[in-house]
């Protein structure tokens, strides 16, 4: 279980507890947090669950797998702290993680 903070583009914060084994994307969808679309349902086939990981947390996350950066090329305004939230698996180590949502997903 990890407490994750989702911060909307307008600054509104949502803190929810997400079960281990779910992804950061699923944590947002299951709790109806706006700002993450996840059109493809988590198959790394779109770039609509794009988030910016908070400074300090980015390097602590499990590294990106093959293909994630390719999809991020197609995201809205990606930067060096960008991740696809469907590819971040939640574990106890992620307790306290903050992610920022982009202005829009499409």
């Amino acid at each position, binding site marked *: 279980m990890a407490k994750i903070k989702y911060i909307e583009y307008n600054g509104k914060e949502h803190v929810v507890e997400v079960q281990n084994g779910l992804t950061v994307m699923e944590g947002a969808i299951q709790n109806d947090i706006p700002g993450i679309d996840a059109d493809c349902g988590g198959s790394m*086939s779109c770039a609509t669950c794009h988030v910016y990981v908070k400074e300090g947390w980015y390097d602590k996350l499990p590294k990106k797998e093959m293909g994630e950066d390719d999809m991020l090329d197609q995201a809205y305004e990606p930067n060096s702290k960008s991740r696809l939230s469907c590819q971040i698996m939640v574990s106890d180590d992620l307790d306290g993680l903050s992610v920022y949502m982009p202005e829009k997903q499409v």
Partner: protein
Amino acid sequence: MIKTEVVIIGAGPTGLFCAHQLGIIGLKCEIVDNLDKIGGQCIELYPDKPIYDIPAVPECTGEELTNNLIEQIKPFKFNFHLNDRVQELTNKNDNWIVTTTSGKKFQTPNVVIAGGVGSFEPRKFPTKSAEKFDGTSVLYSIKDKTIFKDKSVAIFGGGDSALDWAIELSNTSKVLLIHRRDEFRGAPASVQKIKELSEKNIISLFTKYSIKDVKGNGSLEEIEIKSEKGESKILKADYALGFFGLIMQLGPIADWGLNLDKKTIPVNTENFETNKKGIFAIGDICNYPGKLKLILSGFHEGALAARGCFKYARPNEKYRFEFTTASNTIKDRLGVK
């Protein structure tokens, strides 16, 4: 005006199998898709990725699945209308008039929406200033490459479209290639070629840069790009081309008066009809308690929606359930003995 019994919107696996089921029960249909090819997400997003959960098919790629479905509906000789998008649905005496972007019109008692998450559209530049040049000097696809001759062309992106056009246009234009990171996702041979052209100063390569602004009076004159650290550069360019892949947009479907739940359409699970009589929704775009976004669910939904269509297409006939193994009528439709 094309008169038919069913219009299917979307030529992905769900739409294709629904067409098959319509053919089996003897109904005619026309299939419209915004993409230039058949297959939907399977062909656009993951043609080479293996799928492991198609019943009785231990493993197949998106492309193989699509080809098999096309083969399966061949006997029915249905028409495909590709590169076209359904824009408008209007009701007229128990029929729907379906109008596409290209101006085609269909008259049909049934419309089956098998639209996935919507239609694929190119992702555009995030900068507002690019909008006023959209379609003239800011482009997301190329129809006539001769317009770039002897011009400065700024190409954005790191996939095959961006690399292929950079290589191609470098023969006749001054090409700037801008990508947000050092690595390219295009084919290795193209990446190698780009590096060679860059070393020979035939292409100007700017990696770890993205667009900041575009400027010009009437037509594009210069672009401003920024690095992640915030350094910016101003470059002369007559055209800016963006190849950021495709995104899925619900598009006109949102305007047809259907009940919507987020980006999905609620249906009943008896025949997958929506809140509008004669409009059905199947596959990823439909929503009901327990909905699974799996291709196999789409097949089931398409089979039931096809039976739902029968009622409106042949109000005076009674639908008879038959097995393909036993029915001579079905074998005739399939053209087998």
